[in-house]
């Protein structure tokens, strides 16, 4: 049966399924229960998005662990718990907060298995809100997935819609490796079709969401919608675009990228993050490195500018990729 849910609700649904199906799964994060820990039974916050609302009543405070605002201890303890048999799902409220808790991810979770000669399993999921679009300014709007994607040992995924969010999150939780699950602000309250029940979307596989043939638009998270909007406008002028949703940033589905490039010879990658050392650059490098003879035009990157995320609505709009910016880039290729 077809039904639509906002992405945040789809995430809550995935968490409920994971918690119900596996006693090792626990949730840890700031305000994941909120006031719900009070015996008086006030209505809990359920995290910054309300995605975890209702879970503490269902699964109790031993599995829905409301933590202090103490990201280093939270992440570090989650890594320790994951290494010793739990399957923690951490809510890192905004990815910007990586700055105060990077070591457990960078030097511990990412490297345990390797450093210990394969004798460790780190089934850890870190859910974290990314991206601009809510006038949240420089410290609550960054798309830092390029950092985690560049660290061997971590996996990083980013859904573009509610249905994918549910399936990808279930995959992430059940994965025996540490997975960073990005929740782009611009899709959190957008509704789209979410299948009922338990299903998984594999990590490491991109999804061709639109068939074109003239040009490939590669997006991730919120930029998939931007690519789709650009594609429908381009169709009116006779340019048919493939739109590829990366879904997984590490591992990167190189085959899917090269396949669409092979079809169109023209590729534009749209990334909400800043342009240096990022996913867009990585995809462009892949095209040149492994797809050189497929290129019928330069690879274009439509990204944020090299600046912090601004506050003012006008500045933030100028900062973010838009369908028009994508269309302009496409016009440079023909």
């Amino acid at each position: 049966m077809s039904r639509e849910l906002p992405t945040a609700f789809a995430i809550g649904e995935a968490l409920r399924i994971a918690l119900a199906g596996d006693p090792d799964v626990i949730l840890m994060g700031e305000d994941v229960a909120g006031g719900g820990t009070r015996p008086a039974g006030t209505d809990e916050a359920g995290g910054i998005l309300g995605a975890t609302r209702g879970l503490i009543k269902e699964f109790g405070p031993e599995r829905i662990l409301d933590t202090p605002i103490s990201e280093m201890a939270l992440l570090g303890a989650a890594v320790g718990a994951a290494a010793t048999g739990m399957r923690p799902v951490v809510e890192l409220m905004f990815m910007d907060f990586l700055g105060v808790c990077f070591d457990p991810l960078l030097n511990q979770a990412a490297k345990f298995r390797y450093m210990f000669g394969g004798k460790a399993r780190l089934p850890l999921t870190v859910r974290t809100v990314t991206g601009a679009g809510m006038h949240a300014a420089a410290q609550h709007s960054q798309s830092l997935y390029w950092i985690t994607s560049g660290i061997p040992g971590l996996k990083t995924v980013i859904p573009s819609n509610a249905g994918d969010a549910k399936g990808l999150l279930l995959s992430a939780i059940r994965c025996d490796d540490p997975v960073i699950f990005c929740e782009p602000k611009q899709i959190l309250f957008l509704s789209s079709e979410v299948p009922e029940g338990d299903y998984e979307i594999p990590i490491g596989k991109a999804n061709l969401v639109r068939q074109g043939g003239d040009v490939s638009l590669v997006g991730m998270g919120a930029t998939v919608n931007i690519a789709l909007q650009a594609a429908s406008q381009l169709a009116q002028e006779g340019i048919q675009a493939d739109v590829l949703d990366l879904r997984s940033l590490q591992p990167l589905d190189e085959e899917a990228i090269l396949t669409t490039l092979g079809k169109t010879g023209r590729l534009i990658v749209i990334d909400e993050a800043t342009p240096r050392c990022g996913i867009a650059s990585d995809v462009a490098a892949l095209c040149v490195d492994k797809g050189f003879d497929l290129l019928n035009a330069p690879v274009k990157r439509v990204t944020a500018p090299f600046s912090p995320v601004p506050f003012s609505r006008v500045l933030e709009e100028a900062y973010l990729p838009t369908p028009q910016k994508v269309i302009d880039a496409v016009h440079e290729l023909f």
Partner: protein
Amino acid sequence: MATPVAMPRLGMSMKEGRVVEWPFGLGTHVAKGDIVVIIESEKTEVQIEATQSGVLRHIYVQVDGTVPCGKLLAALTDSADEAFDADAFRTANDLPDDQARTAPRAASQHPAVSPKSDLPRRAVAPAARALARQLGVDVEQVPGSGPGGRVTKEDVEAWGKRAERLVEVSAGVRLEVLRDGQGDPLVLLPGFGTDIASFAPQVRALAATHQVVGIHPRGVGASDAPQAGCYAVATAAADIAALCDAPAHIVGASLGAAVAIELALAHPQKVRSLTLITPFVEASARLLAVVDAWCRIASEASIQTLAMALLPWLFSEHTLSDEAACQRIVRGLVPSLAAVSAPALRRTAAGLRAWSGSRGADLDRISAPTLVIVGAGDLLTANDDAVAKRIAGARNIVVEQSGHALTIEAADRVTQAIADHLRAHSA
């Protein structure tokens, strides 16, 4: 007084160069800034401008001759009739063969040319290179239609297919013929400096009822571009006549209309009906000036720049006021304009100039049923019935809110008019 033209030295590594083309015939006047000679060095063709005006009086190194830098190539004299001793001039101005390599003299220190050693390398998309390798095509010969003239995969594909579309029209000259549809033959002749893509909307519609035969004249698309001072309109008409086994409906736009008129006069048995779109018989000064600018921009700037420069001359105020339409048109024009190289443009322009005014008195001899379509806002050719009224029985249509590029700007109106005309004269 005579001025030497010498093989320039373009960059430190250049030791010799090959003469590719003398665009002006002997005895013709070359203005300062005109391309006096095209040379090739290190696989790059470079156009050398005359630094002084003069008459091309003597050529010492013919096409395909390869000589060291500094070697005397030609002499220009102030006038055509002044005294000139070619041997004495050579003795006074040329380098001894053994010195040429090592000691460029005053002639090349103050060269009679303007070197363009900073020309960018030709851009070829990697996919185009790969396909060219696969097809065994020399990618350097393929005209580029991408941004900045980049050769794209599509360009190579089209080039690769050209062989099957080439038809010999005279000894050693092959023209590209694009056929589409079934039925009575309908020949389309594009205007100056464009290929058959300028008729794209008409081809799509008319191929349903006719065999549409798009012909690329000499120097257009994959057609041969023989070296010559001029591509005469009469030659173009003879080429078409050679291609037509049976009488055909002939549709020509602008210069293509001139070729159609020439065909109707010189080879009337080949013409079943005639459609003249924005025709001219005496080129206006404005038309000639635009053609000159066209040649110049094509050799010095990008195709996009050329397309943008032509836009105000080819389209009406009505179209120009729609920014999105203009962007679309420029994008569409680019590949069409890229199909004609700068030397071919110059040769074609010379043919246009020579033909202009030569047939004014003959129009009344045209016997084929004739339709003339003009744009009310055309700046380059007649925007009224000036041509039609000189052809017996010709019907004239004036399309409002349209300029010179009628096949694009008033695509549907033109298609419909041609279809009606064909229907009326097919029985």
